[in-house]
C-alpha cells in the first residue's frame, strides 16, 4: 500500500457511459491482486475533499487501468483528466478475490463496473467458466471482447432487451442453474449493485455453494482507520451475533454466508 503520484497515460471513452483511465503507476500497479482497488484523489472540484475508490480493471507491468462512469461531481470532474496530468492514487487496497476452489466451476456475475472489477480475477482463475453480465441497456455491458479473449463464455442480460436476454442477470443465472448449471458445482465471483450481490449470495447459500461478493460501500480513508465503510457480518461470538468488518480492509470481497444484509439492501 502506497500513495503514488501517477501520470495519466491515456483517457478515452470506453463504451456506454464508461471511460478508461490508464495510469503509469510503477509503485502500485505491480502489486495489484485481482479484486483490489485504488483510492483516487480528485483533481477537482476542490470542495470535494475525499478520495474516490475504483476497482483496478487491468494491471500490466507499471500500468493500471480503471473503468469508471460519471455518476456525481467527482467523477464528472475526472473526465477532464488528460494524458500527462498527475494523479495521486492510494493502493492497492482491500483483500481481493481468493484463489478458486479446485473442484468448482468459476461463475462470474457482474453489473456496472463489476465487469471491470472481475477482469483480473477472470484472467487469473485457473479454469474458465461462464460469465453473466447484466445492465439496464446495451451500453452497460462492458468488456465482453476482453473476457472472451480470455476464453470465457459471456452471457449478457439487459433490462430493456437491447443486448442479450431481456431481464435481470439473475434471471439468466437461474435459467443456467436449472438448465444443468447446478450440477457443475459453481463457485461465484460477483461484483455489482447490492441487490444483485444479495441475490447471487442467496442462490449460493440455497445451493450450498460458495459466492465471493465484492461489495461497494461509501468510503472515507480507504485503509481501515475511519470506520466509514463498515458492513455487518455474522459473528457468533459477538453480542447480537454480528460484528462489523471494514469493507476497505477486510473486504471488499466477502463470502456470501458471512454477510448480514439489512432491510433495504
Amino acid at each position: 500500500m502506497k500513495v503514488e503520484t501517477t501520470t495519466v497515460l491515456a483517457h478515452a471513452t470506453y463504451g456506454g457511459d464508461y471511460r478508461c483511465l490508464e495510469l503509469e503507476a510503477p509503485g502500485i500497479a505491480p502489486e495489484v491482486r485481482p479484486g483490489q482497488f485504488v483510492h483516487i484523489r480528485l483533481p477537482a472540484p476542490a470542495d470535494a475533499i475525499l478520495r474516490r475508490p475504483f476497482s483496478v480493471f487491468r494491471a500490466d507491468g507499471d500500468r493500471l487501468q480503471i473503468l469508471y462512469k460519471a455518476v456525481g461531481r467527482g467523477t464528472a470532474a475526472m473526465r477532464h483528466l488528460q494524458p500527462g496530468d498527475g494523479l495521486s492514487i492510494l493502493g492497492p487496497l482491500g483483500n481481493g478475490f481468493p484463489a478458486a476452489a479446485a473442484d468448482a466451476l468459476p461463475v462470474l456475475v457482474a453489473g456496472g463496473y463489476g465487469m471491470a472489477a472481475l477482469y483480473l480475477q477472470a484472467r487469473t482463475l485457473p479454469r474458465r467458466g461462464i460469465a453473466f453480465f447484466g445492465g439496464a441497456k446495451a451500453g452497460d455491458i462492458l468488456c465482453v471482447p476482453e473476457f472472451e479473449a480470455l476464453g470465457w463464455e459471456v452471457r449478457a442480460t439487459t433490462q430493456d432487451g437491447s443486448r442479450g436476454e431481456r431481464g435481470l442477470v439473475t434471471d439468466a443465472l437461474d435459467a443456467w442453474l436449472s438448465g444443468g448449471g447446478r450440477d457443475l458445482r459453481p463457485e461465484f465471483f460477483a461484483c455489482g449493485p447490492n441487490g444483485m450481490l444479495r441475490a447471487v449470495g442467496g442462490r449460493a447459500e440455497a445451493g450450498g455453494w460458495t459466492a465471493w461478493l465484492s461489495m461497494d460501500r461509501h468510503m472515507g480513508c480507504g485503509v481501515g482507520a475511519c470506520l466509514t465503510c463498515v458492513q455487518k457480518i455474522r459473528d457468533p461470538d459477538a453480542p447480537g451475533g454480528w460484528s462489523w468488518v471494514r469493507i476497505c480492509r477486510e473486504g471488499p470481497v466477502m463470502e456470501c454466508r458471512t454477510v448480514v444484509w439489512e432491510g433495504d439492501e
Partner: protein
Amino acid sequence: MTATPDLAVRIGSLTLRNPVMVASGTFGYGPEYADLVDLASLGAIVVKGIRAEPTTGNPTPRTVETASGLINAIGLPGPGVDGFVRDYLPFLRRHDVPVIVNIWGRTVEEYGDVARRLGAVDGVHALEINVSCPNIKEGSKAFGTNLESFRRVVDLVRASTRLPVIPKLAPNVADIASFARAAEECGSDAVSLINSIPAMAVDIETRRPKLGNITGGLSGPAIHPVAVKLVWEAARAVKIPVIAMGGIRDAADAIEFIIVGATAVAVGTANFVEPGTAPAVVEGIRSHLVRHGLPSVAALRGTVVA
C-alpha cells in the same frame, strides 16, 4: 538564523519531538497507516476513542462529504480498554511514538474507570478526555457543553491517573474560555480543541438524513476558521498548553494555530486525503521557522499581532 530549530514541545510531563499529532478517530489505532506514515515522525498518535467496554458504534451511513468538509457519525465504536490493551498496545509499544488515548464513558464513573485502567498499563503516555463527541446519545454529549458536568468528569479523571490529562473541548459553546479555564483549574495538563461541529445533511429526494445517526460532526477545511477563533480564545484564557485541530491541510494551517497560541496541533480529516499530511506539516513548520529566523516552535507561539 537557526538551521535546525527546536521543534520539541511539552504537554505536562510528556515531551513530544515535534508539535504535530494525528487526531483521534482519524488515524485508527496505529497499524492502519503504518505502511504509509513513519509513526516515529509524529509528535504523538492519538488513538480512536476508548471506553470501558467494546462498543459497536452507529449504524451506517457514517460519513457524508459536504462543501470542503466531512460530517461523521461514527459513534465511537471500539474494542474497549481490554481489547485496546490486548490488540493494539503491543504494536504501538514497538514504535517510537508517544501514545495518547482518547477516552470516553457513558457515565462520569466510567471516565474514571477507563482513566485508572489505562493509567496502569505500560505504553500509554497521556489521556485525551473526549467530552465533546457529537455522535453519542448518552451523557457524554452534555459533559462537553455543561460546565458543571465537565468539571466532574475532568476532576475524576485527574484523580484517577498520574498520566497527563487533556480534556477535548466542544466547539458549540458560547464561551470556550470558561471551559478552558475549568480544565486548567481541575489540574489538566493541556486542553485540545476543536472536536467536530454538530451538523446534519438530508437527502431531499428520500427526505432521509444522510447519516444513520441523523446528526454528526463537521470536520475538515470548512471548519478551520472557526477552530482558529476558538483556539485563540482558549489560548488567551489559560497557561496550560493548547492542542489545536480543525481543518489542517498543510503547514500554513498548523502555523496559523501556533501563531494564535497553540502549543501543538493535530491533523484529522486530512489524513484521509493525504496520509502524509502530518510529516509534511512537521517539515513545513521547520522550514517556516528557518525562513523567519526563529530558534524554536515556542518562539512562534502566540505571536499573533492582535
